[in-house]
């Protein structure tokens, strides 16, 4: 009990950092939680577009802006700087500027210059495609109308007719079938949360456990423990159990939060798998903390090590940014961290349609890898601490 109390005492001293890691997790989880429109029907991706219309919004111009607005998430931004900021931060994919007198110029058979800004993302490319395609159709019908009445030009050019033709043409769409039954949106939200949790869990566990263990390992204390009447092994066992308890508490805590942030996915079979996966990872983080604390006896060093290891593992394995965006070389290096296997499982679960034993085979393999890492860490930690047992 004494050992456990001492553990709690030291733990109490470093709860500030644990709160910080948790706050980061909450903020991240909260921000990534987009409104979950759950559907297994086809919905076209709508790029964010800003239309800056300096022309009168009637006739041809109106038809154009209406079409774009209908096929995009139209955003209104006040200043040019707001637009530039939004483009840079990829909050707006595409901006189209319609100059004054655009309608008249089109009706005259001209192709007036249209300025645009693009953030060069896929959404932006698609938006550009959409605009170009609209303009081509528009030109086609205007040309046809002009050819039909070459003498009277714009006077007789029936603007209403042209607009109707364009709209009619664009209304014809192909049929799209979606095969998935998954709510991909909330699934990726869950995966995102748990991926980030790998950082919070790892940093929290390593930080606290290392600090506690190094406190116990400081030379005067170590001497005292060594000569105390309590069996060395018993002492270590209690310490280990305390740490285990803390790690599980941390896991439970983050697990509970996930129910709030992620929502109903957590009540499905996949949710249970996310929890199981993070549990195995927590145990693995615990062993990692043991290894680190057995190597470094210096409290000051712990803070540095925690940050390098936790951030390294988070960046290289895809805890912060989606795995598919990571270069292959980085992922190859990431394999040396247990977090890689943990995150791979999360990503796999994201796309898993139904939970079955055969479908979960890769999950179990990843868990096994993490367990092996854990065993490996414990063995190395034991070798290191056996060498250090004799007080130098």
């Amino acid at each position, binding site marked *: 009990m004494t050992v456990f109390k001492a553990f709690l005492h030291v733990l109490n001293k470093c709860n*500030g950092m644990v709160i910080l890691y948790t706050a980061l997790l909450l903020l991240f989880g909260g921000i990534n939680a987009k409104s979950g429109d759950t559907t297994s029907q086809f919905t076209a991706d709508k790029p964010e577009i800003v239309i800056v219309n300096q022309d009168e919004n009637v006739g041809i111009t109106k038809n154009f802006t209406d079409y774009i607005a209908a096929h995009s998430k139209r955003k209104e931004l006040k200043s040019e700087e707001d637009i530039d900021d939004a483009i840079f*931060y990829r909050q707006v994919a595409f901006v189209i500027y319609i100059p004054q007198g655009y309608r008249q110029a089109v009706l005259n058979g001209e192709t007036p210059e249209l300025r645009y800004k693009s953030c060069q993302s*896929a959404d932006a490319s*698609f938006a550009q495609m959409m605009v170009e*395609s609209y303009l081509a159709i528009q030109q*086609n019908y205007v040309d*046809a109308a002009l050819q039909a009445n070459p003498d009277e030009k714009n006077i007789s050019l029936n603007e209403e007719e042209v607009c109707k033709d364009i709209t009619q043409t664009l209304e014809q769409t192909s049929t799209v*079938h979606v095969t998935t039954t998954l709510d991909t949106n909330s699934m990726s939200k869950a995966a995102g949360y748990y991926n980030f949790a790998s950082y919070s869990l790892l940093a929290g566990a390593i930080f606290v456990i290392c600090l506690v263990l190094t406190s116990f390992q400081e030379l005067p204390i170590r001497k005292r423990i060594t000569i105390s009447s309590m069996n060395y092994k018993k002492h270590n066992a209690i310490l280990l159990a305390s740490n285990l308890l803390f790690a599980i508490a941390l896991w439970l805590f983050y697990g509970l939060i996930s129910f709030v942030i992620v929502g109903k996915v957590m009540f499905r079979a996949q949710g249970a798998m996310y929890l199981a996966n993070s549990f195995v990872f927590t145990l693995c983080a615990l062993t990692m903390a043991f290894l680190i604390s057995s190597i470094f006896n210096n409290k000051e060093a712990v803070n540095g090590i925690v940050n390098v290891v936790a951030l390294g593992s988070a960046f290289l394995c895809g805890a912060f940014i989606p795995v598919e965006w990571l270069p292959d070389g980085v992922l190859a290096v990431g394999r040396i961290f247990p977090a890689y296997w943990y995150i791979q499982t999360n990503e796999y679960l994201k796309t898993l349609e139904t939970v079955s034993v055969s479908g979960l085979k890769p999950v179990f393999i990843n868990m096994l890898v993490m367990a092996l890492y854990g065993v490996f860490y414990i063995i190395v930690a034991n070798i290191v601490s056996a060498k250090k047992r004799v007080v130098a």
Partner: protein
Amino acid sequence: MFGHNFKYTFKVLMRNRMLLFWTFVFPLVLGTMFKLAFSNIENSEKLNVIPIAIVDNEDFQGNEAFRRTFETLSDESSDEQMFDTVYVSKDEADTLLSDGDVDGVLYMNGAEPEIWIHENGINQTVLQYVVDEIVHTSAIMEKRVQNELEQGAMPDIEGLYKNVMEQVAGRKSNLVDASRANMSYTMIEYYTLIAMACLYGGILGMTALSRNLPNMGNLGKRTAIVPISKAKTMFSSLLAAYCTQLIGLAILFVYTIFVMKVDYGENLPYVILLALAGSLAGLTLAIMVTTVVKTGENGKLGILIGITMACCFLSGMMGITMKYIIEKHVPFLDKINPASMITDGYYALYYYGVDKRFWMDVASLGIFSAFMLLVSAQGLRRQKYDSI
């Protein structure tokens, strides 16, 4: 005396391994990780060649518009390649789709195109759009032919077709790109890194200052009884800390510019000016924490690290979008966060060049620093203590 104290403070700071780790090494390590993790992001967000499967049945082979369009758009030698197309049977296509090897399947059912996809996404949307365009083109053709027939003319179908195809596929529209240059938004990550280094640099000032304050320990007591004015010892200590900070920052700049190829825009003198202002903000923040917060040296260090991490988080270090969200929705937070001011300053330099926004950021840092000093003034000026 000034030089003597400066020299030794500098020596003490440069020999403290823990300090050097946080202020010199840690930003380099973090920067390297950024480089590794983010090097691919900007390519990933671009529209890549989309893998699709087309069910190779008679209906498809018989439809010239579709066959020719997809042939053109799947041409590997072309810059315009949009699709990586495989022609397979219906069953094979289904397998490819469910395995995630292709993003979509095109299946011609008579004259009606059907698209099969597994999940929604931009690639799927693009596929649908291209198919729709072909449908539209046919629709235009029909309309044009019909019009000409109505007017009693014998339509030149071959000519019309060519004309329509040219207009639709040739894209003769007059679009002009007005986007700004310097669109690489991952640069923000490195700017937050500089911001972090500026703020962490304050730890140096905190250490140097602690040794001048009698209520912060024995070295402070000893310094308090020397026959030199407190202002003088304190100023020279802080100046030494500031210089050490700048050395660390210089190393970081050299590393980010030459090794990680970070782009700070073209205005080097302004980049340096912002670094000076940012470091000053970090230093004064540390002075404020040292003098105002009432805990031990370690507690203050923890608080400073916590504040720094929180500030960096809010300025986009753990997700660039964060910066934008705060800037547009909680501008108040942005205005008091020194990490945001630094990040935004570099962003302004990179994206807009030296203009109003940059000077606003520099001025904000100046005001922030002045405010921090004002808050700390009482603690700094105090010579006698109620208890030590």
